[in-house]
């Protein structure tokens, strides 16, 4: 929709004043002077501004990694009129410009305008983002008329994933490990043998066909008693459970680089590391009901990645115990290696200690507990003073870390701003 710009009243005034004076003084020259802006407006109205626009957004890649350059493009074509054509596409906040600009201006002269606008951006944070809606606005070459935004293009989704960190330098974790994979670790979801092991209560995720209805009816105390399922011995692999804390305190850092983002990268790397070594890996997002039950293979890696992709640090503090309680049916008796990725602060220390105690009680004798304590103050530090302030704040957390260590967990501090995950992993998985 074309409308007059703010310049029109100025031109009207520039015409009205000399015309009035010319009439008052009987001055033909002033009348002629007053006609100039009037003619300007009339002549401008004879020519149209840019119109007949065709705006098409190109197909960008459907997914990319954090830090990877993505090239996006669009084609703009204007058939008629003269003036400025401003074409832009909204880029989500977590993208940094790499090459070119997402906002371009073109001069539409007397000929047809055809332009390919390519630009590159870099995704700085994982997530699902929407691209593809470009807007165009036009300015008449006289400056007297402007056009409202015209929106075109189809929305498309771009998935930015955390680039998997690789853990190197751990050659034989089993022989060197300080926090060893439990010797008697068993798997609850591996290849199932036909050897009956026990009856246990039904937990969420169990298959319905495993429910032993006869035993359920025989042993039920009341109508609220959960069904019983048959548990069979499994020719299983060793199990690793990765817990990632999604509490709000994990937001420490910047909106792009913070404890939670580092935790996501670490959870992804650790999961992949153990899956590649033929372990069964389970994953739980502490503070939510979301979990991926322990399993192995590439599909499991994809499921964990998908959950990590959607994870946000929005939960309340101190929910580890609740997560353990929710999953205890799946953890019980498997003696897994449990890795908790969190920020240990006084507010959640007690809950972590309780959760670790519960894990010991249900996990079996060989259960190993490891806590990766993400120290994210360094991510937000801009200078040495900020770093010192972060160190001081960490002093406050020391007693909480001691409490967790006292509960039998091996705690490893990780400052993502100065330490590569691989180096911390070597400390975690090998003897020092």
């Amino acid at each position, binding site marked *: 929709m074309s409308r007059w710009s703010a310049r029109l009243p100025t031109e009207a005034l520039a015409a009205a004043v000399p015309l009035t004076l010319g009439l008052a003084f009987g001055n*033909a020259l002033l009348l*002629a002077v007053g*006609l100039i*802006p009037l003619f*300007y407006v009339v002549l401008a109205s004879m020519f149209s501004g840019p119109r007949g626009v065709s705006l098409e957004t190109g197909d960008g890649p459907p997914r990319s990694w954090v830090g990877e350059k993505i090239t996006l493009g669009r084609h703009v074509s204007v058939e*008629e009129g003269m003036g400025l054509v401003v074409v832009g596409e909204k880029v989500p906040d977590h993208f940094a410009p790499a090459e070119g600009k997402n906002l*371009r201006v073109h001069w539409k002269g007397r000929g047809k305008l055809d332009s390919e606008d390519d630009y590159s951006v870099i995704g700085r944070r994982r997530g699902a983002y929407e691209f593809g809606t470009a807007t165009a606005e036009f300015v008449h070459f006289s400056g007297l008329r402007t056009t409202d935004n015209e929106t075109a293009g189809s929305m498309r989704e771009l998935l930015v994933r955390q680039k998997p960190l690789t853990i190197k330098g751990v050659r034989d974790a089993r022989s060197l490990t300080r926090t060893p994979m439990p010797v008697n670790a068993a798997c609850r979801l591996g290849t199932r043998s036909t050897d009956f092991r026990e009856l246990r209560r039904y937990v969420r995720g169990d298959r319905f066909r495993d429910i032993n209805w006869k035993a359920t009816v025989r042993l039920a105390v009341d109508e609220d008693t959960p069904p019983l399922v048959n548990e069979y011995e499994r020719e299983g692999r060793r199990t690793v459970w990765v817990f990632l804390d999604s509490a709000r305190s994990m937001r420490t850092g910047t909106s792009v680089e913070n404890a939670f983002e580092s935790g996501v990268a670490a959870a992804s790397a650790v999961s992949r590391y153990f899956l590649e070594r033929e372990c069964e890996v389970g994953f739980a997002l502490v503070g939510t009901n979301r979990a991926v039950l322990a399993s192995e293979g590439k599909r499991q890696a994809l499921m964990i990645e998908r959950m990590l992709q959607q994870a946000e640090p929005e939960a309340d503090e101190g929910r580890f115990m609740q997560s353990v309680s929710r999953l205890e049916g799946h953890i019980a008796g498997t003696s897994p290696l449990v890795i908790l990725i969190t920020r240990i602060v006084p507010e959640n220390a007690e809950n972590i200690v309780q959760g670790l105690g519960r894990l010991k009680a249900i996990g079996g004798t060989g259960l190993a507990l490891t806590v990766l304590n993400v120290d994210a103050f360094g991510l937000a530090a801009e200078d040495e003073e900020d770093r010192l302030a972060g160190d001081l704040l960490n002093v406050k957390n020391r007693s909480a870390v001691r409490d967790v260590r006292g509960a039998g967990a091996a705690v490893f501090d990780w400052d993502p701003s100065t330490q590569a995950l691989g180096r911390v992993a070597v400390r975690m998985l090998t003897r020092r």
Partner: protein
Amino acid sequence: MTRAKMAGWWAPRFWTTLFIVIILGLSALVLSQTMLFKELAALMSSGRGIDPDMIAALLLLPILVLFALIAAASRKGAKAALGVSWVMLAPAILSLSDLDWLTVFSPSGSGGHLAVALPSYAIIAITIGLAAACLCQRSYSQLASLRDKMISRGIDAGEIDVATSKMFVSMSALALGATMASIAVFAGGSLLAGLERPSAEALALGLAVVVVAVAVLLVSLRGLEKARSPSSGR
């Protein structure tokens, strides 16, 4: 100067400032040639010598022009410089009026105090030029604020400079067309009325300009037709 530099934002700013400075100088010339020069000549011939008021006026004029010249380089100053030009031209413009309001209000006045030493076509040309300069200045000012807005939105400065420079050329062409059309009307009106003023020279100038204006309009209309044609190349 390279072609690339001329296509940048430098060009509109330079040409607008140059135009304003020229008009300012011409306005100062008109003022000195009408009011001051005539008054000075009268004083000298009467043998009374130059009174302090006249000395002050003589000193004030170059200072005023100097300030206006300096101000013309900036966007807001250009407006002030054009205002000064209007003030300096006002007596000469009013001298071309059919109705002398000053005589109406003071019948005892001489009536010749607005007499002009310069030929009327020069006054007409400078006044029309000043009106065109005002139009150019408004165009330039609008483009400058548009450019600032675009740069603040994140558009590349080089890209917007090229686009706004091209737009300035189009705006100037439009301003030229409007000026020519106005001159044509003025000249035509004078011819029809058969008035003594403006002078014969002015009418001749007007006629010449009408021919140019018609040519410009024809070319513009032809360009419009070509631009509207979908098959036209870029």
